[in-house]
Every structure is written in C-alpha cells, then in structure tokens.
C-alpha cells in the first residue's frame, strides 16, 4: 500500500541530485544526525524521538565522498527491490552493493558496517523504514494464542500451532489480522519461558497471545506487538528477569531506543506494562534464595537506566531501582520453577493479571 510512496521518494532523491549536478553544484544530502546529542525523550508522546539536527554530506569532499556514494547506491538498490517486490537481508544487501571501483582495488563497501550505515542514513533521508525499503532485519520469535491471521494468502490460526507455535517473519507489514479473540499479549524475553507457558496452555486459559523473541526484541516482534496494540487495542504485558537488562528490554519496547529513535512511532508502545519480575515479586514469592550477585557491569547498567529521563520522575520505578541496588542481586524468571514446575502458569500470572499488579 505504501509501496508507491516509497518508490516516489527514492526517485525524488535521485532527481534532486541529478539536477544539482547538471547545474554544476556540489551535490549534497541532508542527513539527520544520529548521535546522542540529537535524540530527545518526548514526554508528551512518551517516546524517544530524533531531534532536528541535520548534517550536509557532499560528494566533492574527501571525508564525505565514500559515504555519499554508498548512500546513493543503497537508494538505487531499494528502488530495485521495491520494483521486484523482493526482500534482502542486510548481509545480502551488502553483497549486492559490494563492487570494485574501476582501475583500483577499492570496493564501494568493504564491511557490512558500511552498507548498514548507508541503509540507516537512507531511512532518515527519505523518512522510510527499512521494511519499506525491503531490507529485512533478523528473524526471531514464536507466537501462540487466540488470533487468526492471513499472510501471503495463507490463513493461519495461532491457537492451532501445537508445541512449536508460529514463527514470526522479520517483516510483518503484510500480515492481516482476520480474527482477534485474545484480550492481551504477554511478551517474554526467553524462548524457554515461552515453551513453559505454551505447554501449560496459558494463552488458552487466560485468553491471550504469548510472544517471545530472544533477549532484545527484534524489529519484527516489536512491530507486531505495536500493530496488535494499535489496531486491536490489546494491552501488552512484558515478562522479564528481575535485572537491569530485563528492565532495559521493557524500556525499549515501551519508549523506543536511541539507535532506532527515528522510527519510534513505528515501534514503540508507550502503554506497555511490566508484569514482572519486580523486586516486590521477588519478596512476595520468596525468591530471595535464588539471588544472583550483581557484577560491576550490572551496577553500572542499573545506574544508567535509573537515570533515564522517562524513569526519572516515576516514583514507583525509582523504588524498584533503589531496592534492586540495595539487594545487589538479580533474580531470573526461571527461578519461579523452584516453587513448582507450573507455578508461573498456575499461580503467578493469573494472580498478577487478576490483581492488575503491573508496573507502568
């Protein structure tokens, strides 16, 4: 649906440069700056967003020329992909862009790092997302629950997926939600946890969808969570370990991240809530004997997170951070199994949901 628009904006970019050249000007690109100094938390929308600082990149500048040509080449590739209706992974795109300059041993791109950056710059310059440019991110994540979708002509019922679940694609833009009987979504950071909940058929008992990625959620997972949230008003509950890294996963899902600040609107879910583990849960469910001592790096991360603008004014979050700091330890979700093999499914989640015991 947005395909035409994407192709148009890519062509517009080409025309601008060609015009400059024919006028004898130094062709230039205006690239929004992706450094920390140009990223701000927008408290009104509850999202991390890009500022308006822009750098001008010239072709006739020793320091710029390489990146300039790489960015234009990335645009040419994206136009081709859109035309064909095909997608490439970042690695494949790297190989498509890699070629040797005539009469030299210089490659247009030498490292994937370079083509990645060119693609990210292109997203900013043309105000499109990588998905629209037909470049795939990583594929990772399983889902099960009371939803039926249509994708590529197939009808897929997420409640009839056996023990494995549906495997989420890296690009979820074309998925159509046919029937949504779920009342909310539980997102968890670990596939092992997902298998626990799926084996215990939690999504059936609690009328919900369970989705996992591995560690930090991939773009595809974040997009599908956001789409279900926005298009079908499903609340998103995040289930992570009680440690700074779990909190960070929650933070990124909810407010967006610095590296993807330019597409926060397409990824962030400001209404997402934490369903655990909080430090209160650790105490309430008697998990204190499974504390894992903080390392220096944990203390540092906790310190960073507790200073995030979006957590700074939340009394409740600051309370969590303080307790964690005093406890000097973290606790994993898996520790709940010491209370009983299906304790998380039979007791923990139903209780938390019934009491609306969420951290916002």
């Amino acid at each position, binding site marked *: 649906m947005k395909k035409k628009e994407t192709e148009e904006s*890519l*062509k517009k*970019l*080409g*025309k601008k*440069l*060609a015009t400059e*050249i*024919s006028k*004898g*000007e*130094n062709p230039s690109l*205006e*690239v929004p*700056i992706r450094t920390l100094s140009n990223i701000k938390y927008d408290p009104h929308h509850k999202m991390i967003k890009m500022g*308006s*600082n*822009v*750098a*001008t*990149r010239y*072709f*006739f*500048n*020793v*320091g*710029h*020329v*390489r990146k*300039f*040509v790489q960015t*234009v*080449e990335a*645009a*040419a590739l994206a*136009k*081709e992909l859109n035309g064909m209706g095909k997608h490439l992974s970042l690695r494949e795109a790297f190989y498509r862009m890699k*070629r040797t*300059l*005539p*009469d*030299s041993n*210089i490659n*247009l791109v030498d490292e994937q790092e370079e083509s990645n950056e060119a693609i990210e710059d292109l997203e900013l310059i043309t105000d499109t997302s990588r998905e629209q440019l037909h470049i795939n991110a990583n594929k990772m994540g399983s889902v099960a629950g009371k939803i039926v979708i249509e994708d590529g002509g197939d009808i897929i019922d997420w409640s009839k997926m056996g023990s494995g679940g549906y495997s989420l694609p890296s690009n979820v833009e074309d998925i159509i939600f046919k029937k949504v009987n779920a009342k909310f979504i539980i997102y968890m950071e670990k596939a092992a946890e997902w298998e626990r909940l799926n084996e215990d058929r939690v999504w059936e008992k609690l009328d919900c969808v369970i989705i996992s990625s591995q560690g930090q959620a991939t773009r595809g997972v974040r997009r599908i969570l956001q789409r279900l949230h926005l298009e079908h008003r499903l609340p998103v509950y995040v289930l992570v370990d009680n440690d700074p890294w779990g909190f960070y996963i929650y933070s990124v899902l909810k407010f967006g991240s610095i590296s993807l600040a330019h597409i926060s609107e397409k990824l962030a879910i400001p209404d997402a809530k934490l369903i655990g583990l909080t430090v209160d849960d650790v105490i309430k469910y008697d998990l204190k004997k499974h504390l894992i001592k903080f390392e220096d790096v944990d203390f540092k991360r906790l310190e960073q997170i507790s200073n995030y603008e979006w957590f700074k004014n939340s009394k409740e979050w600051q309370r969590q951070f303080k307790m964690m700091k005093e406890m000097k330890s973290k606790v994993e979700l898996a520790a709940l199994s010491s209370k009983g093999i299906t304790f998380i499914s039979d007791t923990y989640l139903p209780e938390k949901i019934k009491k609306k015991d969420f951290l916002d």
Partner: protein
Amino acid sequence: MADKNITAEDLAHQLRAVSVAEFFEKNRHLLGYENPTKALITIVKELMDNSLDACEEARILPDIKVSIKEIAPERFKVKVEDNGPGIVEEKLPLAFGKLLYGSKFHRLKMSRGTQGLGASGAILYSQLTTGKPSKIASSTGKEIHEIELMIDVNKNDPKIVSHKEEKNSGKWHGIKIELETEARYIEGKQSVFEYLRQTAMSNPYAKIIYDGPNGKVEFERVVKEMPPLPREIKPHPYGVEIGLLRRMLASTNARNLVGFLTSDFSRVGRGTALQICKLAKLDTDRKPHDLSHDEMEKLHKSMQMVKLIGPPTDCLSPLSEKLLEEGLRKETKAEFVVAVTRPPSVYRGNPFQVECALAFGGELPKEGSSQLFRFANKVPLLYHASDCATTDAVVDTDWKRYGFSQSSGQLPQGQLGIFIHFASVWVPYTSEGKQAIASYPEIVKEMKLALQEAGRKLAVYVRQKNRMHDRQMRKELFEKYIPELAESLEKLSGDKKEKLIEALEKIIKKSAIKSEENEKEGDGREPEKTG
C-alpha cells in the same frame, strides 16, 4: 694465631693505609670496567675526552685517530692520538701514572673529564689485565718524549719503565697513547663505533679517524669554528655546603669577612656581603679564620637567605644551534634538521644549559621508534637510557601535536632523530658509570621547553610537505567515485549515466580550488546544522 682472642693491640698492627690505586683496582666497576665489552668503550671514551678537552682549551681544531686491533682472542691494542698542546715532560708521568691527579677537579667550569681518573684508570686496567706498561708519546711542539709507564699500585705513583727523547722535525704536538687490554669487541647500539659516531655529532669541529677491527671509518670535520672557551667561575653561595664553607674560610687569603664573601664567591658584591654579615650578626671585620662553629652556621644560613642573581653562565660552552644542525645533518643525512639552544638556567646553584635538535627523514629508520641521542658536556651517553632525564623529557612531551604518533610513556614513532645536549659545570649523573642524567625537575623542564620549540618548527615543515601530496590524492579519489555515483544515480533518477559523468568531471575542475579551502573539513566529520 687463629682462635686465640685478638686484642686491640693485635688489631692495631693490622691497620694500614690503602692506596687509591689499590682501591680502584679492586673496585674497577666504579670506573666503568665492570665487563670486557664496557671496558673497551670506557678506555676509548676516557682517552678521547682528554684529547678533546685539551684541544679545546688550546683552541686547536681536534684531529684524533683511534685504532683498535685484536692481537689475541679477547686481547686488544688501543691507540689514541691527538693534535692537542701535549703535556710538558715533567708532568707526563704524574698525569698518566697517578690516580686522582688532574687539572679539572678543583675548578667550576664545563669540561668532559673532571676527576683525574680517566687516563690513569685506563692504564691501571690495562696493566691489571695484561701486566704490561702503556706507551705514551707527548710533544709540546719541541722534542718528542716517549715513555713506557706503569703504576705502582701500592703507592699510587708512576713508575717509568723507559724514556726516550726524539727529534721532532715535523713540529708535531699532541699526545699519542698506546696500551694493551683484555676486552671484548661488539658492534651495535652500545659499541665503540657508536660512541665515536655520536662524538662526531656533538663535536662537529673535530675530525675523527677510526681504524677498528672491522675496517677504517673517517668522521669528517663539518665546521671550522669551535664554541667559545668556557670561563672558570667561583662558587655561588646557594650551592655551598657548610663543610665546604668551613674549608674556604680556613684557606682564604681575604683578611675580613666582606673581603672573603666578595672575592671567593660569584655574584656577591659589597652590598650583599654587608647584608649577609648583618643577617648573621657578625662584624664585617671579623677574620675568616677565627669564626666559631656557631658563627659559621649563622653565616651559612644567611648566605642562603639573601637575594642573589644566578651564577654567571660563561662557564658553559654550548654547541650552538648552527653546530648542532650541521653535526646532526651530516650523521643522519636527514632531509630536515632544526636545533634549539635554551638560555642558561640553574639547579642547586649549578649553572646548566640545554640544547636539542630534531632530524627528520633521510637515513633514519622509517619504521618503529624514533632515535634518541643523549649527551652530557658533549660526551655521548650510551647506557641506562631509561633512567635518564633526557628520556623523561622526550616521553613527557606531547609529540602528537607535532604530527608523530606516540603511546603513553613511550618515545614518539617515526623517522625522527632526537638529540639532547646537557651542558653544566657539574653534571648530576645517576650513578658512577656517568651514563644517565638525574631527573631534577628544573632540568627536565628546560629539556621539554627545548623539545617543544624544536617540535613546533619541525611540525611546520612536515605539514607543508604533506599538503602537496594531499592535493593530488584528492583529485584522483573523486575521479574513482564518479562512475559509481553516475551508475547508481542513473538507476535512481533515470538520467543518463554518460551525461552525469560529464557534468561531474566539469565540477571537479572548477572545484579544485574550493575543495582546498575546505581542507579542514576533510577529516570525515560532517558539519552540523540545526534545522
């Protein structure tokens, strides 16, 4: 004897004086003879130092011949010949055959040798390891005296084995000394050759011919002027310890305190002398010999309290920037050399002066660390570089400012030679081997200032050189990327590739000038704009 108890009387019989020669024979490492390799360098160094000092005092451009020949395994014959003023016949045996005998110990004036231990130490080591006398020939321009000499170790006195007097038809003057010694010969960083090479750098007015085990090398004279002769000065009140003051008071010819202070010290005029006496509450007419110990202490303290200008600095003889540059350029074949001579300064009452020079390019090694050449009173220092004030100063200088890479705590990298000369009436060596200068803050500071000044000058040269190179590179770079850009842009905009290339080639010619102005942006950072 043995186990019966020994009484004070028994012990008294055993007490004996030890001669200086005996002492140094047993403690030869104190003179630099701790191993056969270093022994050979020490012998050459001591004889060279004497020759250069003598020529300089007599204002003769030095011509010095050094010869080292292996005559048996680990046994060498060493010859050093100079064209100096020579030594008069009567003093010849003492000057070479008695330790602690010389002209330089008692005066405050910059020179290479100081203690009267150099040549006699070499002869002592020679006779200890070979049992043979040394041959010395000397002429002051008249007849030639040739003696064979040994040292009577028990008495520390010369023993003349033979004495010949010869006609001197060629009017030769100078000293020729020839001795045999146990030693080991090596090449490399700490070798006789390197010692002579660096001596040539720091004495560019000298001609040195070296005939070594591996062939003959000539270090040509580069300049024909010598630095001015340093003058002898009197002690400065700030550098005098109480024990020395006591001795000066006892031996002075002055009849009263004011006379003593003004005539026996530098920088003390009548006004200052009166002030010192007043501070010490001592009558200005007091006889210097009559002071009690308490009065001496008061006098000493007062001398430290008055304000005085620093000691005179004409006791120093720096090389001068010109000589430094010539010497270094010749030895390194560098494409660029810059030298800096700092004004004199003072540490602990001792005047000193720092010079440095930087050499860039030429025959210096292209890879790895820069080369540091260290000198004290024109004598190269080959050992203990890591303990030396010169190394501290180089390491503490921020060479990145001058375009050289440098890891923290290391010498800079690159095709760079660094020459540092420390000149003083009293060089504060860190140890007996006279191989490293102690890191007094005043000294390191002067060295750093010299290096910084020279570094700035070198940086200007290096930058100019790089700029020319850059211009050409820039043009070639854009020409490589133009076809790529055109190709991508054709796909994107639909415009013809050939047309785009033509337009871009046109711009490149036009913008050649403009892009030069942009130079400072060329570091790859993009200018920020607030939109």
